[in-house]
């Protein structure tokens, strides 16, 4: 199986650790993943903001970059949804050879948890993470991709990990791409409630499959010094007994582990 990683422009630039985590998890499971350097962005921001014509070259470059692979793994629910659900819409409008290209490539694109559970058929990826974790199902994973319980099945199989329920889990965190800045007050009001739910859950870590949503939630947590860490699913699955609790990350640590870094690292969260 020729396997490619679509890192997404957001992770590439701001969360390289998540990409490294994906590579590590897949390597541990015996799969090498290629990184086609021609990849850039799925075009979601342009498409969702009304700049549909500007999304066309991005869709085209996506098809060019990933043509010929058997599967494409993406550590983002919303970028996967953009490719699978909406690239065809952009392509139809653009015409030419693009619709055919999208029809070939898009069905082979998988969100990370889908790829692990559906394509590789694993739920235990050999991870170790001795912390309590609440999982936030981001809207596009939940309602566009319908990843269902795949992420929580993966988390349940992690040794040492305690999965706790997130109250009102299916409510949107309020990120919504440009919504976060165009409707900043509403976005922050929604995010504030998500932070409250995370605190209510008692978890030490809030986990999701989208770093974009986590940047919003984590940004609020950081500003409020709320003392919860946000982490991408891949970053949890990358941890092992040999390299526990985020230490594999080296100098990038503060980025992935966020926002709690300003406080002195406390081994136990006292609440």
């Amino acid at each position, binding site marked *: 199986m020729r396997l490619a990683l679509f*890192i997404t422009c957001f992770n*590439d*630039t*701001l*969360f*390289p650790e998540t*990409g*490294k985590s994906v590579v*590590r998890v897949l*390597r541990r499971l015996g799969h090498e*993943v290629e*990184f086609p*350097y*021609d990849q*850039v*962005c799925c075009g979601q*921001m*342009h*498409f*969702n*903001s*009304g*700049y*549909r014509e*500007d999304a066309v070259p*991005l869709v085209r*470059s996506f098809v060019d970059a990933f043509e010929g692979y058997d599967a494409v793994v993406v550590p983002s629910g919303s970028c996967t949804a953009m490719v699978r659900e909406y690239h065809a819409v952009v392509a139809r409008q653009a015409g030419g050879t693009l619709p055919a290209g999208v029809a070939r490539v898009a069905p082979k694109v998988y969100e990370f948890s889908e790829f692990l559970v559906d394509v590789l058929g694993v739920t235990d990826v050999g991870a170790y993470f001795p912390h309590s974790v609440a999982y936030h199902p981001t*809207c596009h994973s*939940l*309602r566009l991709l319908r990843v269902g319980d795949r992420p929580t099945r993966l988390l349940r199989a992690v040794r040492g990990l305690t999965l706790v329920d997130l109250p009102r889990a*299916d*409510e*949107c965190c*309020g*990120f*919504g791409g440009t*919504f976060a*800045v*165009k*409707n*900043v*007050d*509403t*976005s*922050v*009001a*929604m*995010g504030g409630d998500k932070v409250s739910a995370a605190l209510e859950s008692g978890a030490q870590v809030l986990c999701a499959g989208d770093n974009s949503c986590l940047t919003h939630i*984590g*940004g609020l947590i*950081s*500003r409020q010094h709320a003392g919860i860490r946000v982490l991408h699913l891949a970053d949890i699955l990358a941890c092992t007994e040999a390299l526990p609790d985020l230490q594999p990350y080296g100098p*990038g*640590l*503060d*980025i992935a582990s*966020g*926002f709690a*870094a*300003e406080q002195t690292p406390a081994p136990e969260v006292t609440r």
Partner: protein
Amino acid sequence: MTTSVRREPTFVGMPPFPEAAHAELANDVQRANLRAATHTIRAKRDAVVAEVPDWELLRRAGEAIKDDVLAGLPGYLERLEVAVRAAGGVVHWARDAAEANTIVVAIARAKGVDEVVKVKSMATEEIELNNALARAGIHAWETDLAQLIVQLGEDLPSHILVPAIHRNRAEIREIFVREMGRFGRPAPERLSDEPGALAAAARRHLREKFLRAKVAVSGGNFAIADTGTVCVVESEGNGRMCLTLPETLITVLGVEKLLPTWSDLEVFLQLLPRSATGERMNPYTSMWTGVTPGDGPQEFHLILLDNGRSDVLADPVGRQALRCIRCSACLNVCPVYERTGGHAYGSVYPGPIGAILTPQLRGIAAHRVDAQTASLPFASSLCGACFDACPVRIDIPEVLVHLRAQLVDGERGPRDRAEEVGMKAVRWAFEKPWRIGFAQHVAGVGGRFARHGVIGRVPLPKRFTGPVSAWFADRDAPAPPAESFRSWYKRTDGGQEE
């Protein structure tokens, strides 16, 4: 009784959504009321929907029936007209709000009345009928409990089904005590805020109006093209009072409300109450066909209202909004609506459906729209909860994004030059992988100046009110790392040489 008739407030002149939402979000009483109400209705709806094993099939049936109606609308409308006429009713056609209002006023004048009783109706809200009647010196008494609360409180509706959803018991009691006496029977002394007591006060206040009124005005939930039957679904029975007691009944009906045959009601009378109030069946379902001699109103006028619907129908993506049966399920599940309430949308149709229907009714497909209208398609995080809840499967996120493209690519909205430049710059950077690599390198160098990898408050001059200051007003952000993923992959051959 010729007291001057009180005009009602309207949504005209409301600010764009973000500005309106800013003010609404600060209303803590309303926030608590809405949170409680939406969460309660949501739970009830989920429970009764889960009971129906073929719910998804029902939704698909509802979608298919409505799509068939929309595809053959002219023919169905003519069938309806013939059937209503045959049953003794009068059919009027209204191109827009002004025409519809003129027809209603003319009928009321011909009857020599200075008051009408009203069944709660979105169509008459849309055309601002009450103010048209007020200008003609005719009182329009709202008889739906929640609509009465809004009317007495000189308030605006904030929900399709429960227009006073933003009010709590204490506020309602206060409105009743203060206002009822000015328009009829006053609230009893020492009125409590128990729901039963409030309902009893409304009942006594309305009863004399029901018994006196000669003319009633209603909307309609459904109209059957085959038989000419109009159907109104409600919970209180006040609607039925209006539909049966007065001598003359005027119904204002959006042209999209048609169903082909009587048996199509089977689908919609399951979909609507479960989606709307979380009930298996609504308490009152009234149906009438023209006039029945000696029974109920002896004169029936049906006004078929276009008011922008033909334009909506012309848009292949946007037209699905005409499937809407006004159940409010999309409002009740919407995380934006739950926090801002309905007034922020500046339209009689709030929430997700309002965000897609209002701009279309205001002509976004044909011409430039004002800033308030243009803000509505952006009043959503695209979370998709509305689509999942919608009983007729309106893909609201799809339409929102479609309208955004009309606003930006189609230049129907006010231009945002700064955003355009930003979007073009990002597109430019994304066109060649080396450009994104270069941008990441620059960002990474900048990121070294951040403390502990976190960017906190950004001290921007006041005139920079763009997305950056919006983000950092309440949120931190991670500093860009020194090395992007693509550089790491290249440097270490995908971690092999680490």
